[in-house]
């Protein structure tokens, strides 16, 4: 079986500063794979490169067997790679419903889109209650739900979530993590970037620890969770 996403020796730089220094990992269909690490480790840069917002300096990205290196950002989502960005980035002055519809921007099947809007409301009932409200008026957690719902609207083969728990209350964070587990149970493949290593590793089939642009440790989520180095560095134990 070949991986859905294969990243090989990926290098990304901002000017002279190399933010990602040759990382390799893969994501199999149906899995949750997580990248954990501190601020500045290169996790967000990696995701932004995968979705085409940043051009890599070197290495290979293969999605579904096709190289993404020459594909512009706006065509990548059509291939089945959706990205819910760090900081949520919902469209604040558009309604919740219009935000969701933008997630389906490239789809033409009106009925399917309507079904998926309904599915997003089933997944996050609060969004349905406020569908005509400007998205900028939502709380942080609600905006996160919207960002995830919006990313799902393209019916992605692979959903990339960047820091979905950032800035959320513990209750809201649990709710988001439960949703991620639910999405996996429904068959969605997920690449999860998190600073909350505990939560991310508990969910993940496979985890990769990043430090200043390198993957320093990889393994099944549950193994990393009990790994001494990981516990010391990321789970606040000494």
């Amino acid at each position: 079986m070949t991986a859905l996403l294969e990243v090989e020796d990926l290098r990304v730089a901002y000017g002279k500063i190399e933010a990602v220094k040759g990382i390799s990992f893969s994501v199999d269909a149906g899995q949750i794979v997580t990248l954990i690490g501190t601020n500045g480790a290169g996790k967000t840069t990696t995701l932004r490169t995968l979705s085409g917002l940043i051009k890599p300096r070197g290495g290979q990205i293969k999605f579904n067997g096709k190289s993404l290196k020459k594909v512009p950002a706006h065509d990548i989502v059509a291939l089945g790679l959706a990205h819910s960005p760090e900081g949520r980035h919902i469209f604040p002055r558009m309604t919740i419903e219009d935000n969701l519809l933008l997630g389906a921007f490239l789809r033409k099947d009106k009925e399917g889109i309507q079904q998926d809007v309904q599915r997003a409301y089933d997944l996050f009932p609060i969004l349905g209650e406020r569908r005509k409200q400007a998205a900028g008026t939502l709380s942080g957690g609600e905006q996160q739900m919207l960002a995830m719902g919006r990313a799902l609207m393209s019916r992605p083969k692979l959903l990339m979530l960047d820091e979905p728990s950032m800035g959320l209350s513990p209750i809201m964070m649990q709710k988001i993590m439960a949703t991620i587990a639910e999405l996996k149970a429904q068959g969605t493949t997920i690449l999860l970037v998190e600073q909350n290593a505990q939560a991310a590793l508990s969910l993940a089939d496979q985890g990769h620890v990043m430090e200043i642009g390198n993957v320093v440790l990889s393994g099944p989520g549950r193994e990393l969770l009990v790994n001494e180095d990981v516990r010391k560095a990321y789970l606040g134990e000494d």
Partner: protein
Amino acid sequence: MHELPQQLVNGLLLGSMYGLVAIGYTMVYGIVQLINFAHGEIFMTGGFGALTVWMMLPSGSTMWVALPLMLIGAVFVATTIAVAAERFAYRPLRNAPRLAPLITAIGLSIALQQAVWAWYPGATSSLVFPEIPGGPFHLGSITIQTGDIFLLIAAPISMAFLGFFVKKTRTGRGMQATAQDPDTAKLMGVNTDRIITTAFALGAVFAAVGAVAYGLKYGEVNFKMGFLLGLKAFTAAVLGGIGNIYGAMVGGLVLGLAETLTTVYVAEIPGLEQLGGQSWGNTWAFVLLILVLLFRPQGLLGQRVADRV
């Protein structure tokens, strides 16, 4: 107070012409944060496009046949120049410091004026624009000049079309998304380069409609007509809240009313007799701009919803 209703109508008509041109400023600004100072000249080339079509038509063509063709000519010329300007003058500077495209816009504005002056036959002075035949149109005590009838019909239709386009079409939604967050719009599959081109083109379409209205209203076109009108339209866009397309129209109407009413009525205020009349209309229009910016810097319809981060 003489003929207040008449002056209100005059002001609204003038204002809707400003509004049509203001849309182009506000739309481009909303999407690429560029004040396209060449937009006034794009408006001007629209006027010359319409005139060229008129001169190519067999003499004796009626206005009812000619006008739609002139409108197509205006739209074609203005849109072509706007799209070319975006592609070749602004796009290469997309990631340059803000000042670079701004200076380019001013340069392009001068270049377009001079190109028309130098190369359009007879354009070194004003050229006569055809008239709609028939006398003025009376509605109770209000008179609408024949030249203004086009504006009366075209401005509301244009606005309704624009509102529909932005709110209801897929491209319109892509446009809103690009204006609010271009990177995230790309993640949704929006081809932001194409959206930027569309914004320039659409702005040029409305400017071209405005240019035909200008020609009919004043009976002439000239290579400088985009300068003051462009400045006024830009003022209207800022007045309404730059980036907001409804603001552009509201700003245009407010500006047109202010200019017309101050022109007529300031002279009737005892002690201010010398500050009324045509020559002061522009002054008052810009005084209004300064006042609005002092007390409401975001413009009349500026950002209503707070963006939570």
